[in-house]
């Protein structure tokens, strides 16, 4: 670096840097058979930010989330329309030529209910690496520890890595699932109502974790809990009946929503 560039850098650091797009859905529609669950949704997902999807039950927020790792491909009769662009390589995730497995190797997901495999804690975290053909014990050990530390679970389980994952508490199981998703260094981490099956203390620990995780990766989270969206997210999208009603900076959405419908939902007059 030449010294003349230094003032520019510090000036940029002082102000909030302009957000970079990590992904973007363009005119995304989705159909379960004949039923159109998503209608023409276009919105950006910013890099290393938390984007929350909120809206009443059945509004399509989970459906939208599950488009990002092509989960819908597992079931017959589902159809996508439109694009989800992943940056910086400009890959359209929904392109039929793109293998859904390739998409899932880049974008991980944490589900609503903790779903550990009936295997040991270690094997749960290592599974994503094994799927990628990793066999070296030393590398597996290292990555498993790193992922468990990343999910703030290492200290609680380091002495019982080879015990069955079902013996953990609900909150620990969910953090294990986060570790499992982190172990493969995903670019985006999808969360589908990750705390809806957890008690308030476990919920708080997961929320704290989200704040730490966004230092390294991009997060897209579905939540039915508006306070949670306000607490953890940088951007919020409000959806209703398969449509994107409003998208913006979380503070703006919660303090001064532009749309009357968003305001009604957020203030609890509806939903």
């Amino acid at each position, binding site marked *: 670096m030449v010294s003349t560039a230094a003032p520019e850098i510090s000036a940029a650091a002082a102000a909030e840097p302009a957000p970079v797009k990590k992904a973007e859905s363009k005119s995304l529609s989705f159909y379960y058979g004949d039923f159109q669950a998503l209608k023409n949704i276009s919105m950006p997902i910013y890099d290393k930010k938390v984007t929350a999807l909120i809206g009443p039950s059945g509004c399509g927020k989970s459906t939208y989330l599950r488009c990002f790792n092509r989960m819908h491909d*597992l079931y*017959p009769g589902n159809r996508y329309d439109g694009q989800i662009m992943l940056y910086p390589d400009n890959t359209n995730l929904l392109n039929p030529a793109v293998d859904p497995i390739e998409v899932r190797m880049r974008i991980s997901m944490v589900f609503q209910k903790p779903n*550990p495999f*009936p295997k040991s804690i270690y094997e749960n975290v290592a599974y*994503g690496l094994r*799927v*990628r053909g990793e066999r070296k014990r030393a590398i597996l050990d290292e990555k498993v520890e790193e992922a468990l530390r990343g999910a703030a679970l290492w200290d609680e389980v380091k002495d019982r890595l080879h015990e069955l994952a079902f013996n953990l508490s609900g909150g620990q199981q969910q953090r294990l699932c986060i570790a499992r*998703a982190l172990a493969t260094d995903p670019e985006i981490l999808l969360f589908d109502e990750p705390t809806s099956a957890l008690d308030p203390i476990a919920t708080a620990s997961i929320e704290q974790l989200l704040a730490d995780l966004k230092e390294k990766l991009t997060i897209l989270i579905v939540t039915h809990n508006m306070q949670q969206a306000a607490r953890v997210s940088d951007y919020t999208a409000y959806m209703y009946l398969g449509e994107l009603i409003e998208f913006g900076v979380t503070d703006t959405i919660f303090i001064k929503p532009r749309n009357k419908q968003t305001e009604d939902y957020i203030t609890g007059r509806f939903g």
Partner: protein
Amino acid sequence: MSDTAVRVQEIRALIAAHKRWDIVFGIVGLLALMVGVLTFAVLFIQMVIDGAPRLSWDFFTSFPSRRPGQAGILSAWVGSTLVMLVTAMVAVPLGVGAGVYLEEYAPKNWMTDLIEINVSNLAGVPSIVYGLLALSLFVYQFGFGQSILTAGLTLALLILPVVIVATREAIRSIPGAIREGAYALGATKWQTTSDHILPYARGGILTGVIIGMSRAIGETAPVITIGALTFIAFLPPAPVSSEFPYLSFEWIMSPFTVMPIQMFNWTSRPEAAFQHNAAAAGLVLVVMTLSMNALAIYLRYRLRKNLKW
């Protein structure tokens, strides 16, 4: 009396009238149950009384004989064991493979539906029909003769639907969330199947296989149809030997007899002493079947212990 008291009286009368039907059904149900249980108990006790005195070490280590006191079930239980071995080796890979394919791989369309209906119907086909099929296909067409191989294949066909259905049930009991969890990590269909579906379905599949085998071991009609002998005074060649190449598959083409045929043979003899032999053999067969079922229950318990869903 006050209105409330009258009302309570009425409600009580109503409940009493309704409860009479509870008692009536209780009695009818118990009778229905007893018909089955008592019949089996009487048959079993009769068999024990007739057969138990004949049970001895010699009974298991002797070949059939013209003299009832010296006759034993050696060739029958060895035959049954070897036939079951062939049956398991054929039915397990075929049945589990078909079950996994139908559940995990097959596209959901009318073809798959048709195959599904046919598989369940196969379970209801009378076993003698399998015997006739095996006679023309395995014995004559393929030239396997009246051998252990033919019997094993026939009984494998017979229990194939049971194994397929058990495999599918076991796979279906695995929650979708586990499957999605594996796929979400980038696993392929085969990785998901071999790393998760099959290991977690293992208990249910094994149970189904054993239940199927315990049915097959008592089957008589198809084995008679393909021409099992009723009087065999030699054993098939041993499968292991002390000389190279140590393993031999000659036994697979050997003539054979099985437990139910040995029983059938003895019951058709006029001498009463042979009836005792038949009862003793029946006792052994029932114990074999029951212990297989017990093993199935134990395995189901053992292998499901770590699966909490």
